[in-house]
């Protein structure tokens, strides 16, 4: 009950190559990035790996590159670096906003984006913006590289498509002029700061032949962060009138399956999903009118 760290072998990788080699060899290991999720999980006995592979110091995977139609973010980029990046603020404002509301300066200064996604928590706050952007997760192992859509990559609570020996190396985040301008983010927690999402929501609009295509994603309302496909389907080709917004925010119920926990009841989460979506869509409608 009174948590203690179990014993394990500790390896500190000096390069990505070395990390992957070690991972391939050891088998029963966990990567340690910032450790802000992993240490807690080790203490409560969620994982009991034989070895810990410390990749936290690998600066080669800490970068934010503005690459034309996309932004590439290294898996070991710290949340605080993301928050301070002008590239992220201008091209991925949803991600900037989500990270702004995450944890505290102390935690953000060690926590990484790869850890947030690698941890695959239903409450991961970088997930909704990344899902709206249709981010691609790049992984690497001694066998080579893979690229998987984030939406498929996270499978359920703490489950991903990551294979033994594989490491997340990069997020490739498609950017678009639409999402730079037409977006809204909501995070509802148990208090105003330093809190996990009771419901988190990212909404954005892209343009296809001049008309908007809406993308909606939520966390903490299902076993994993989700895209609200029914809502998106419904909004196809529609103008955001009050009644359309009203209907869309009800349809979101089909996309979610929340549970009750110490942070909120399932019923209340359902209610919040609708309220937050309505609010966010109104904000975007306002911007679209201008």
């Amino acid at each position, binding site marked *: *009950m*009174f*948590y*203690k760290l179990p014993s394990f072998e500790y390896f500190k990788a000096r390069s990505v190559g070395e990390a992957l080699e070690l991972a391939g060899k050891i088998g029963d290991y966990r990567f340690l990035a910032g450790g802000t999720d992993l240490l807690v999980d080790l203490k409560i006995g969620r994982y009991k790996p034989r070895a810990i592979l410390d990749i936290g110091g690998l600066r080669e995977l800490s970068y934010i590159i503005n690459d034309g139609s996309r932004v590439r973010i290294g898996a070991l980029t710290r949340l605080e670096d993301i928050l301070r990046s002008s590239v992220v603020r201008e091209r991925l404002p949803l991600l900037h906003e989500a990270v702004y509301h995450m944890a505290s300066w102390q935690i953000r200064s060690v926590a990484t984006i790869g850890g947030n996604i690698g941890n695959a928590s239903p409450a991961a706050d970088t997930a909704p913006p990344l899902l709206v952007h249709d981010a691609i997760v790049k992984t690497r192992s001694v066998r080579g590289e893979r690229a998987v859509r984030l939406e498929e990559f996270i499978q359920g609570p703490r489950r991903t498509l990551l294979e033994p020996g594989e490491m997340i190396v990069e997020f490739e985040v498609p950017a678009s002029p639409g999402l730079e301008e037409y977006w809204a983010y909501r995070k*509802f927690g*148990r*208090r*105003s*700061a*330093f*809190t*996990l999402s009771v419901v988190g929501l990212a909404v954005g609009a892209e343009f296809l032949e001049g008309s908007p295509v809406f993308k909606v994603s939520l966390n903490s309302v299902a076993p994993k962060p989700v895209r609200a496909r029914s809502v998106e389907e419904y909004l196809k080709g529609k103008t955001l009138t009050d009644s359309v917004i009203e209907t869309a925010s009800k349809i979101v119920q089909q996309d979610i399956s929340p549970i009750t926990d*110490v*942070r*909120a*009841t399932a019923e*209340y989460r359902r*209610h*919040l999903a609708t*309220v*937050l979506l309505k*609010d966010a869509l109104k904000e975007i409608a306002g911007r679209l009118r201008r």
Partner: protein
Amino acid sequence: MSKPDYVEIVEEIFYKTKEKKTEEFKYVGKDVVRWDAISKISGQPVYTADLLRFIKNPVFVYSVRAKYAHARIKGLDVSDALKYPGVLAVLTARDIPGINDVGYVIPDQPLIADRKVRFIGDTVALVVAESLENAREAGELVSVDYEPLKVYLDPLEIIDPETLQEKPHELIHDERGSDILTRYKIRVGDVEKAFKEAAVVVENKYETPFQEHAYIEPEAAIAIPEADGGVTIYAKTQCPFDTRKAVANVLGLPFNMVRVIAPALGGGFGGAEDVGNEIAAKAALAAIRFKRPAVLLHTREESIIGHTKRHRTISWYRHAASRDGTLLGVEAKIILDKGAYASLGPFVAWRAVVHSTGPYKVRNAKVDVVAVYTNKIPGGAFRGFGNPQVTFPVERQMDILAEELGMDPVEFRLKNILRNGDRTVHGQLLDHGVGLEEAIKKAVELSGWYEKRRLYASLKGPVRRGIGIAIFYHGNSIGAEGADYSSVSVIIQRDGSIVFRTGLTDMGQGAIQGLINILAEVLGVPPHYIKVELADTSATPDAGPTVASRSTAMGGNATLVAAYKLRKRLDQLAASLLGCKSPDDVVIEAPKVYCRDDPSHTITWRELVEQAFWKGVPLQEFGYYRAPPAEWDEETGTGAPYFTYTYGAIVSDVEVDLETGLVRVKEATTVYDIGRVVNRTGAELHAIGGYIQGMGYALMEDLYYDSEGRLLNTNLSTYHIPTALDTPEKFNVYFVEAGYYHAPFGAKGLGEPSIVAIAPSIANAVANALRSREANKLVSKHPLTPDYVYSIIKKAGVKP
């Protein structure tokens, strides 16, 4: 009978300075930098666990806790744990040389459970090992053969709320023969008649939650064996003298062989009372046994499970009023969810009954308070101590009554509050300093009450605003709980520096600064001349417990007495050295000392002290003060329970989102009558800190148990307290100074009062924002989480 000299001294100074404005004092009421601020903010080793770095060759003590919330212990096997590397011993109840009990008020709580466990925090064995890690690991290997018993989490399974009789059930405290810990009552006037004659009656059920102290420093204790068979213990404890008694009992030693020192505490709020005794006793057991320093450190989870909480309550209130808004009678039943052990529950229940009708003129009252054991973490002392739990329902009732009567909540209160010359519900004559009316009026003015009431009623849209008031009174010190005395010693050193000693502790509340200001004011020396020694049972005089908002009034009186006596002697000496007309003409403005009519002719403070040394004028003084005994009639609930009361009025201005139920406090106004402000910075920060802690209690804090009695939120990631971003954007803080003649310059306590009426002021503001008669009644419990507020909005059909 003539008055004791200490009473005469306190009165003399009070009346001499009664008309003097606080601004005119030199140190009293000024913003003085706290004596310990620099060492704390610069990270000096001031807390118990910091001292570990000075300790050599320690053993570590770890508490193995219960696996069930209610079970009989049939057997205990420690053999595997004993074999674990580094383990020196596994201590069980049988290894206790003295009495196996650390109950605070009554002996109902074993230090180490022997026959049965009553909540998940009960200790079943202590592992002593060479490292904390080994002790913890070995703890997993202690195997206990339990016979699980039915777990009681709801006091209403044990007591019938109608009759207040105990229901047949499997007893938690079978050795007592009953799970009703204690009952208190008030029976005054003719309640039946009052209700019959009433034009308006309102009644409702209320609930208040448990609250965790969430202090920054988890508990720690270091025990060092002494050569003479005694033990010295550094421990996080609010009340070292109580801790000494508990440890001496457990060890079977006389008091003088147990020395307890309380280093700076990283927060207490009442939580560091019983648990301090427990951790000190555990560490001391190991230290004595192994003749090595013994260290006990709690993790946050152990802290949350292992120390008491604010009692949860369920209450039913009925109020009767006449058409013109005069309160006619009160009827109330209040059940305290006690948790597994009495702790300070009997006193909490008593304070609850005393304050159960609020600061109003009430002639007819029938109140019952019952404390009922359950299998949860024990309720104990927490800032406010039973008063917040009754102020919430009373102040909600007042607002509902006002609405029923069509009166403004302020007008309704002004019609019924206690003023100078009134008698409390207990029949106590209030013959001094009732600053309540002034406090209410000031709070109304500072908050812009009337304008906002009007403006907010007309706002449209999904985001509403509301403004609410709550008032209260709070008895200072311990009242009828026990003998109420305080003492300090002041020793002027030969270089003029001063050592100040008192058994009162600093738990971050900073009350000692008030004493320093008083001492500095009377002696005429700057506060930085004074060094405060740690509370130490072998070196500082017993000043009673550091609880109940008593440090400033009680400790302040003892300080005043010591300072006065020293000053008299020094004035005499200075007058003869300087040739002043009379000792009263001596001015001490250290380092300068001179006669009032000749400021150019001076000697130094240091010279004066040196002369005192040679001339045989004693430079040390002991200050003692004893409060008049409180009176309390158990049958009727009448008498004079406390010698004085702090009064206050709180106005909260909130925003309520009708779509999510989210409540945010935008502005807070707190006005307290504390008799006299002796420590301005401390008082202002208390007003704000108390508000924030009260806001957490009102909006987000609660404990969640599963059906087996296991706590689900055992750390600060799931037990939510407010962050800086949750605090109101604006605070208006003001103090009324309606002095008390038996207090230092008239000063009364503020530590506990600053939380008492926060939750009801916020709840009243929320109810105001909802603008619905039905919703007004539904705002009947807290925390007012978004879920809960939204459920009220839905049920009452409140529409944007």
